[in-house]
């Protein structure tokens, strides 16, 4: 063992596309492994919603940017003996490399644990990487590293088109492009080389199988391949965008073991210590291979592999990095056998990415070599069909499985299959329904026919099922359907019956799923594992069930998506912790492989399975727990509340009828009226005429909420009469049976949130959050402040009173969140969620009020004592959204009512300016050094920003401005440099200034009167995003930031850990 006392661990910062919850999982495991050795752990991670930044894990936590500047300051302060940089994704790795190159590790005598930085550098530098592997006799794609456009074009000539363009230091495949033609390549080379010094031009391996191995190696040179995975979508689609199956399904023994052997040769050549991911392309015609990529760190794939096999890769990697050898470690699943083994699986797992592309304006829905998905799900089954259908339901996108779905259509199916979007999998179902052959679909998709045959089986099964009524459906066929993963709902659709009737029929026929263990050894040894899943391909349960009044089931969050992320995992994990501390047995249900809640050591039993009514009820009926908590996992479990309640399930906390009253807009609006709580004008309309009348009176814009029994229909913001008609007609959303609720959308008001816990209708703890952005920006995209800095005491008092009224009326027990608008002292309620909200970890950590504990105690009916008041805080917390626009080609970074952020960070400071500046830096903004561009749409925006512009000038910033803004500023005697907009094609043009980075910060506030579609500043914002230049589009945020710039220099930001604040 090495003699170290204190280890510095780098986190990955906010959740972004390409870097998501998996690093909360790997970091948390690393901390556990280090704590087990008695080491002190200092963690840097501004992602306040993570579990790794909880009191019970690391010893010291810094909510500061994972950036060389801050990390070095923390090193100077903490003087750690060692550092770990491979548990925080590419962010931590890049930061570590930068520090190492600066000589910081040498200077402070810090050992970097695990794989040497020399080796890491090889894996990150494409040219070096290729040379090293070729030296070891291994095959890599033919390609050349180039540093200029000319060299790139020559390389492509040599290799032959099409070629793949990749840039080094990339995460999630950013900066990789497929080019078929010379001029296309030339353009892409220019863009890529503007971001990075070096790019790689490579042979294109379209249609080859894409295979991954997760490998670990110890210092005694023991190597293991813990898991191999096969991308169902072959080469050409980023592995993060691919449907992946583990273990591989179409490789022979000799292929499997040859690639395994090559992986070992590669990791030995690179002297990897710890964990490493290796990606191959495998030629389906002849078995030839290329090594595509090696990641010498924990990755998304390693998290998936951990959950797919039960082998805790991150935990083990940390132990190996500390100097253990594999035979010295035990398999934590069996607790009897050695950790030096490769898991044997007796099930199959499928991962499917979760996209949210509909949320972004103008973004292309094509998937390819760049990552766009925001989350993923993993399903476990005893056959491929079962796992596939489970996984598709798990996505929570309104699909019932592979077949039986309603809400999609393809204009050009052939194109969909050969040039896929995020919906291709459903296109395959459509193709088979049309009678296309496996060969045809295979040649279009290049997906291995083995998978396609299995998919076709499901379409055939649908046809067979459709020829029966539920009554006439034979036992064997019903059982076969269940074995192939058909849900009760799907069977109900095919047999024209209801989900409840199918369930009842199953009960009569005694067709029910079995609970199986994931034991890493395919039952070869007895294992004490609590890692479970359900399957119909089994005839007995692996575990026994004892009904208990001290047993509680907790539902997790499902997939990460826009609006539902790691914060709900934090809530769920903390709920389970509190329950366990109170002496309860806990059952966790979740299926998101990126989470900590799906670590089998967090709860007493982990059900890695669907969060559907059917499956939750299956588990509930077997386990017979005392109750179920649905309010800690966000909207997915919350949506099940009423149905479960009606099925006789004991839902803990606020009654599901009350939840329904808050969720059903019509009921909620009526309730507010009854309580005499003000709300924006609203109307329940049953006809277009009625809707039009209301809108004329109240004025546009309005929010339309369809009747919530219509699943899949989302609320929408409508700016004018034309779109009102179009919207209501198109979706035939409005009818006397299905009225819509229309409310006036208020902009320009201040937005406030109340975060609270109540017990039997009485608030026992609360906090008020202030938004920097005015209403109009989705609350998930808002920059929020705690405690509020600019609210009147009277406003705060009134918010509380409203909260108390609602809590009483709905008899709330548990967490809830209230959103309000304030203008002067007038308050209007806009939304109420009777569940834990996105802000709960932020509020809990900044205030140190144990909201989760209070909520859980309240839900269990235990006495709850009042928490402390947030107004006693001597510090300020600011939560800032993290956007991933740079990955979403074409997306407009302009903020609006649709949430667009993928994650968030939060930092603490002595005052608002300090906390805000830290938070913005942590969210990836860089401070302007050269020139700030101002482009303020509309007269109002210009007027309002005037003071801020003066302050910028006074602070010494150089200001550039687009024509109208420039003229306005000049009239006000504010010196600035005028630049023409890109579409104006006149000099001096903004485009050149952005490309040359003479402008390094953009404030582009659109005219609120103009719809986004006519916004001529889109190209400017988009180019800035593509070039990595910060863009601010909200006036209030811009003003606050200017204040912060003026009052604070980066050097003045205090390096204080969480526990140093109070």
């Amino acid at each position, binding site marked *: 063992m090495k003699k170290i006392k204190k280890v510095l661990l780098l986190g990955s910062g906010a959740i972004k596309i390409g870097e998501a919850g998996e690093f909360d999982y790997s970091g948390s495991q690393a901390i556990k492994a280090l704590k087990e050795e008695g080491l002190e752990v200092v963690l840097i991670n501004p992602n306040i919603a993570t579990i790794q930044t909880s009191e019970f894990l690391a010893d010291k936590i810094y909510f500061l940017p994972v950036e060389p500047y801050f990390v070095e300051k923390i090193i100077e302060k903490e003087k750690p003996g060692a550092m770990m940089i491979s548990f925080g994704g590419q962010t931590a790795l890049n930061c570590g490399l930068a520090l190492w190159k600066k000589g910081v590790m040498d200077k402070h005598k810090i050992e970097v644990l695990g794989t040497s930085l020399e080796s890491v550098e090889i894996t990150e530098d494409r040219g070096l990487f290729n040379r090293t592997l070729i030296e070891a006799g291994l095959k890599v794609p033919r390609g050349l590293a180039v540093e200029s456009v000319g060299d790139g074009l020559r390389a492509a000539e040599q290799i032959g088109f099409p070629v793949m363009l990749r840039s080094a230091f990339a995460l999630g495949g950013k900066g990789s492009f497929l080019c078929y033609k010379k001029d296309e390549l030339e353009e892409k080379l220019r863009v890529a080389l503007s971001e990075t010094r070096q790019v790689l031009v490579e042979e294109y391996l379209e249609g080859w199988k894409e295979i991954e191995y997760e490998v670990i190696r110890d210092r*005694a*040179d*023991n*190597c*293991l391949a813990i898991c191999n995975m096969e991308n169902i979508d072959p080469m050409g689609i980023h592995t993060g965008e691919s449907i992946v199956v583990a*273990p*591989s*399904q*179409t*490789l*022979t*023994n*000799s292929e*499997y*073991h040859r690639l*395994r*052997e090559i992986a*070992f040769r590669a990791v030995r050549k690179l002297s990897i210590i710890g964990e490493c991911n290796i990606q191959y392309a495998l030629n*389906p*015609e*002849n*078995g030839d291979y290329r090594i595509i990529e090696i990641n010498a760190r924990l990755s998304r794939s390693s998290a998936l592999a951990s959950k797919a096999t039960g082998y805790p890769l991150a935990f083990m990697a940390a132990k190996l990095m500390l100097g253990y*050898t*594999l*035979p010295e470690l035990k398999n934590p699943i069996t607790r*009897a*056998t*050695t950790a*030096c*083994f*490769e*898991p*044997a*699986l*007796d*099930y*199959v797992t499928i991962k499917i990415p979760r996209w949210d592309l509909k949320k972004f304006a103008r973004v292309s829905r094509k998937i390819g070599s760049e990552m766009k998905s925001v989350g993923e799900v993993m399903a476990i089954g*005893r*056959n*491929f069909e079962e796992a596939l259908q489970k996984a598709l339901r798990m996505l929570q996108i309104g699909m019932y499985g592979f077949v039986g779905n309603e809400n999609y259509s393809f204009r050009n199916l052939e194109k969909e299959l050969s040039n896929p979007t995020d919906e291709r999998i459903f296109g395959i179902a459509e193709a088979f329904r049309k009678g296309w052959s*496996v060969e045809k679909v295979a040649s279009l998709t290049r997906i*291995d*026919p*083995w998978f396609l*045959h*299995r998919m076709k089986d499901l379409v055939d099964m649908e046809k067979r099922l459709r020829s029966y009524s539920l009554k006439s459906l034979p036992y064997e066929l019903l059982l076969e359907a269940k*074995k192939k993963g058909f849900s009760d709902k799907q069977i109900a659709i095919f047999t024209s019956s209801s989900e409840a009737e199918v369930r009842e029929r199953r009960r009569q026929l005694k067709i029910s799923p*079995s609970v*199986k263990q994931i034991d890493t*050894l*395919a*039952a*070869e*040894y*007895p294992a004490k594992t609590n890692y479970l899943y359900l399957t119909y*391909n*089994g*005839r*007995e349960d*692996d575990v026994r069930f004892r009904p208990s009044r001290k047993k509680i089931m907790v539902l997790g969050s499902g997939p990460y998506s826009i609006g539902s992320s790691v914060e709900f995992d934090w809530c769920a994990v903390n709920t389970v912790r509190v329950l366990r501390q109170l002496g309860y047995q806990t059952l966790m249900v979740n299926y998101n492989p990126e989470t900590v809640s799906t670590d089998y050591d967090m709860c007493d039993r982990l059900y890695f399975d669907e969060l559907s009514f059917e499956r939750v009820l299956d588990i509930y009926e077997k386990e017979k727990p005392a109750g179920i908590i649905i309010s800690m996992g966000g909207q997915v479990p919350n949506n099940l509340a009423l149905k479960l309640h009606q099925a006789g399930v004991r839902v803990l906390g606020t009654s599901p009828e009350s939840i329904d009253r808050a969720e059903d807009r019509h009921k909620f609006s009526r309730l507010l009226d009854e309580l005499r709580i003000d709300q924006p004008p609203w109307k329940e309309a049953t006809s277009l005429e009625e809707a039009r009348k209301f809108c004329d009176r109240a004025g546009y814009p309005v929010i339309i909420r369809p009747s919530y029994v219509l699943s899949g229909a989302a609320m929408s913001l409508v700016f004018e009469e034309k779109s009102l008609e179009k919207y209501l007609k198109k979706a035939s959303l409005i009818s006397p049976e299905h009225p819509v609720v229309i409310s006036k959308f208020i902009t320009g008001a201040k937005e406030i949130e109340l975060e609270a816990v109540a017990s039997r209708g009485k608030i026992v703890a609360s906090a008020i959050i202030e938004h920097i952005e005015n209403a109009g920006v989705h609350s998930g995209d808002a920059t929020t402040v705690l405690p509020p800095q600019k609210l009147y005491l009277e406003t705060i008092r009134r918010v509380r009173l409203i909260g108390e009224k609602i809590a009483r009326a709905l008899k709330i027990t548990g967490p809830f969140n209230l959103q309000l608008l304030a203008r002067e002292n007038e308050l209007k309620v806009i939304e109420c969620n009777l569940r834990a909200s996105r802000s709960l970890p932020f509020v809990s950590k900044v205030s140190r009020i144990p909201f989760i504990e209070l909520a859980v105690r309240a839900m269990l009916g235990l006495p709850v004592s009042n928490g402390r008041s947030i107004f006693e805080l001597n510090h300020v917390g600011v939560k800032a959204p993290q956007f991933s626009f740079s990955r979403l080609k074409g997306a407009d970074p302009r903020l609006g009512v649709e949430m667009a952020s993928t994650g968030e960070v939060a930092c603490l400071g002595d005052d608002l300016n300090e906390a805000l500046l830290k938070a913005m830096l942590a969210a990836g903004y860089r401070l302007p050094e050269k020139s700030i561009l101002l482009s303020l749409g509309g007269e109002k925006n210009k007027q309002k920003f005037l003071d801020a512009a003066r302050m910028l000038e006074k602070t010494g910033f150089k200001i550039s401005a687009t024509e109208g803004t420039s003229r306005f500023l000049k009239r006000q005697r504010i010196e600035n440099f005028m630049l023409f907009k890109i579409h104006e094609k006149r000099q001096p043009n903004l485009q050149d200034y952005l490309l040359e980075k003479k402008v390094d910060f953009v404030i582009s506030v659109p005219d609120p009167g103009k719809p986004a579609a006519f916004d001529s500043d889109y190209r400017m914002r988009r180019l800035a995003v593509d070039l990595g230049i910060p863009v601010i589009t909200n006036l209030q945020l811009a003003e606050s930031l200017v204040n912060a710039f003026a009052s604070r220099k980066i050097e003045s930001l205090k390096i204080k850990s969480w526990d140093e604040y109070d």
Partner: protein
Amino acid sequence: MVGYVEALTDPSYHGQILVQSFPLIGNYGVNPEDFESERPQVKGYVVSDYTEYPSHHSSRKSLRRWLEEHRIPGLYDIDTRALVKRLRHYGVIPGVLVVSEKPVRIKPLIKEARSLPDPNAQNLVAEVSTRDIHIYNPEGRKRVVLIDCGVKRGIIRSLISRGVSMVRVPDDYPAEKILEFNPDGLVISNGPGDPAQCRAVPTVIALLKQNLPILGICLGHQILALAAGARTFKLKFGHRSQNQPCLEEGTRRCYLTSQNHGYAVDAGTLPSDWSIWFTNANDGTNEGLRHKKRPILGVQFHPEASPGPTDTEFIFDLFLEQLR
């Protein structure tokens, strides 16, 4: 999860009903190049789910067709995990596969299974060993005689690919006649059943008196141990998987190995001039031995892999280095 063709053709499974714990079988079809012997050796095959549509460039036929051609019955769509748990608990047990249109009465079948002769009391090796002498790679630099107790082709491949010439002889081939080949070394192969029943034991006792480099693999390892004077015993949980970790004594190395055996060498009974070479990291049973002074090696696992990990192929190199 891979390697069903190799397993089905492994003579060590001769006469058994093989149950596959990984549920999806047959995916890449059947390719004769993967065979470990001429034909499938099992009496029956049990899987959870198999495919009618294999997909691989090397596939020549589907698993179903291949088994049908050899008249080997298969069973699918049962809970193989439930079955594996029972096999783990009771060890290898007699079984009956029945094909019937009508509902089956279980009781008489249990009786039938119980009355089956104990395969370990039979001379299974004789059923799978070669009847004739085969010579491979006659031009090879060194000559190795292989006592075939049910050899996997992988062992032969691993040796001839390293340039040696091989003479494969039946398991009851006498020692004097083996020596007539003037071998540079001797390999005792894998095979089915109880080593104590093997006719090769006295042969090896005789050959141990010669100063001949010897390598015993799996059953061959057990035969070697018996010939050296050690004892073997039946394991409670046999080793039948591709992920058996074996520690190399005196090092910190641990290798993943492919195994298929129900008996093991009792390391405590090894004579003093032998040392333990490998030990199973899970259950501590013996996985390898070597003579302290002479070039004699035995490994319980399959260094030739197929199916399974190729980590221990170096055993062949080590053996070849010691050939006369």
